[in-house]
C-alpha cells in the first residue's frame, strides 16, 4: 500500500508503474534506497525496547510476572519460548537477537556477573564452556578475576584458568573505577540507554533484504549535493534506472514508439540525458 502511494500517480483507479519494490525502497539512503521505514524492522525495534526493560527493570510487575511464568530459574537471554505462550511473550521473545546485539554489561563490582555470561567481554566474545565443570568453576564471577581489593585484572590467574585466546580477550576489556554497579548497557548509544533509533539502524544493517538490495556506490555524493530535494530525487531515479525513458517503458509492457522524440535513435537514459544531439548541445 505504501509502495502504491509512492509510485502511483495515475488518475483515478489507474495504478502507476512500480519501478522498485518496497524492500528496495526501505534500504537506507547511503546504500541506494530511499530510507523509508521498514515497518517490520521498526516494530522489532520498538518491541526490543520493551524486552530491554525486562533486563533493566527487574523489579517491575511485568518483569516479575513474565519471569515467574516463563523463566523462573534463568534470565531473559536464556529463556525459552515455552509451552503455549501468550502473544505478548512470544513477541518479546522473538526480538531476543535484537537485544543481544546491543547488550553489554558494565563491570562495576563484578559480583553479579557470571564469567560464562557472554556479554561482558569487549567485542562479542564469549568464553567457551568447559566440558566438565565443577561447581566452583560454574559459579565463577567476574569479580573473582580481579586483583584483591583493586579493580584490575589478575592476569596470572586468568592465564591459568582459561585458554590463551580467552585470556587475551579478557585483558582487552577495560575496567573503569568510575563504574560502581553491574548494569546492562545498550552499547549502540553513548549514554547506554536503549533507543529505537539505534536499534532500528542495527536491525536494518544486519537484515537480509538490505544485504540483498544494497548498492555500494557513493550515494552520499547525491544526497549531500547542494541542490533542491526534487533534483536529488530525480538523480536518484536516474541512477536506479527507473527513469521512464521509452526503452524502459517498453520493458514494462507499455506500448509506445522506441525513438527519442528529438532524433531517430532509440531512447535510453544515457541517450536522453547526454548523447542526444539536443542534450549534448546543452552541455556545451
Amino acid at each position, binding site marked *: 500500500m505504501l509502495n502504491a502511494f509512492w509510485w502511483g500517480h495515475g488518475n483515478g483507479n489507474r495504478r502507476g508503474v512500480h519501478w522498485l519494490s518496497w524492500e528496495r525502497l526501505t534500504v537506507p539512503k547511503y546504500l541506494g534506497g530511499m530510507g523509508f521505514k521498514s515497518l517490520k524492522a521498526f516494530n522489532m525495534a520498538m518491541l526490543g525496547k520493551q524486552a530491554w526493560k525486562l533486563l533493566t527493570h527487574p523489579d517491575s510487575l511485568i518483569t516479575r510476572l513474565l519471569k515467574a511464568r516463563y523463566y523462573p530459574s534463568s534470565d531473559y537471554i536464556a529463556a525459552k519460548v515455552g509451552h503455549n505462550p501468550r502473544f505478548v511473550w512470544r513477541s518479546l521473545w522473538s526480538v531476543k537477537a535484537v537485544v543481544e546485539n546491543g547488550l553489554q554489561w558494565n563491570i562495576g563490582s563484578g559480583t553479579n556477573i557470571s564469567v560464562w555470561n557472554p556479554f561482558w567481554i569487549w567485542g562479542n566474545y564469549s568464553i567457551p564452556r568447559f566440558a566438565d565443570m565443577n561447581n566452583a568453576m560454574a559459579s565463577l564471577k567476574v569479580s573473582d578475576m580481579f586483583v584483591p581489593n583493586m579493580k584490575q585484572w589478575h592476569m596470572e590467574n586468568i592465564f591459568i584458568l582459561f585458554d590463551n585466546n580467552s585470556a587475551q580477550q579478557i585483558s582487552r576489556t577495560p575496567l573503569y573505577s568510575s563504574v560502581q554497579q553491574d548494569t546492562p548497557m545498550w552499547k549502540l548509544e*553513548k549514554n*547506554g540507554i536503549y533507543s529505537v533509533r539505534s536499534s532500528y539502524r542495527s536491525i536494518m544493517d544486519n537484515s537480509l533484504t538490505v544485504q540483498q538490495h544494497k548498492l555500494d556506490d557513493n550515494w552520499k555524493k547525491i544526497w549531500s549535493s547542494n*541542490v533542491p530535494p526534487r533534483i536529488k530525487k530525480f538523480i536518484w531515479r536516474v541512477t536506479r534506472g527507473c527513469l521512464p525513458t521509452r526503452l524502459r517503458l517498453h520493458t514494462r509492457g507499455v506500448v509506445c514508439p522506441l525513438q527519442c522524440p528529438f532524433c531517430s535513435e532509440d531512447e535510453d537514459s544515457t541517450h536522453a540525458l547526454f548523447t542526444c544531439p*539536443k542534450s549534448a548541445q546543452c552541455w556545451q
Partner: protein
Amino acid sequence: MGLWNEVSYVVSNAGNISSTIFEILQHMQPSHHPIFNTLMWSIWKNRNNKVCNDSTDTCQTICNRATSLLQSWTNAQEVKQQGCTRSTPRHETTWTTPSPGRYKCNVDASFSEALDIVGIGMCIRDSEGAFVLARTEWFSPITDVNIGEAIGLLKAMVWVRDLHLWNMDFEVDSKTVVDYIYGKQIGVSDFSAIITHCVHLLCTDLMNSHVSFIRRQANEVAHSFAKAALSEASFCDYYHIPTCIESIIINEMH
C-alpha cells in the same frame, strides 16, 4: 554550459547509466556538481514537455531554467541559514589566556592501536600564558575515543584537585564530553559513569572550575603532549617546560 569536456569523456565509454553518473561525479570538480545535477533534470523536463505538450525549448532556455532554479534555491537557503547561525557561538581557533588570577588546564588524549594504549597530556598555564605544570599518563587497553577523552579529563581533574589549584579552566577538544558534562542526560553506560564522576568533582572540590570546549587547532599543546605521552613511562610530571611543546607555548604567550 561548458561541462561537455567533463561529461563527454565518461559518456563516450559508457557503461550503464548509474555507473556513468557516479563516474562523472567522481571526476568532476565538486563546485560543478549542483549545476550538473540540475541541468540533467532540466533536460529531462524539456523531453517530457516535448512528449506531453509538444512544445520545444531552445538550449538557452533549458540552461537558463537550470541556473535560475539553482540560483533562487541557493539564495533561499542562505537566507534560512543566516537566521540559524547567529545564535550559535563561534569557537576561536587560537588559544587564549585565562582571566587574571585563574589557571587554565588543557587536556587531550591520543590513541595508539599498535601499542594498545591511550596517552593523555595535560598542561597548566597561568593568566600570562606561562607554563606552570604538566603531566603525561597512559593507560591500557585502548578505548573508544569518547571514553578516552573523558578519562583524560577525569585524571586531569583529580590531579588538579590534589594540587589544590581551585581556580581552573579546563579545556578539552571533545565536544561530546563537554556536552554531556553540562547536559541533563543521565545514562547507564561506562561513559556516563565517568562523566558523572567528573560532574561530581566539579560540584564538590572544584566548585570554582569549569570545563569548556575548544577547537583542536587551539588545543595544540595538549594534543602534541598527549602524543608524547605514548612513548613515556606511565606517569611523568614536568616542572619545567618540556621541549616537545616549548615552541607552541612560547608562540601562544604572544
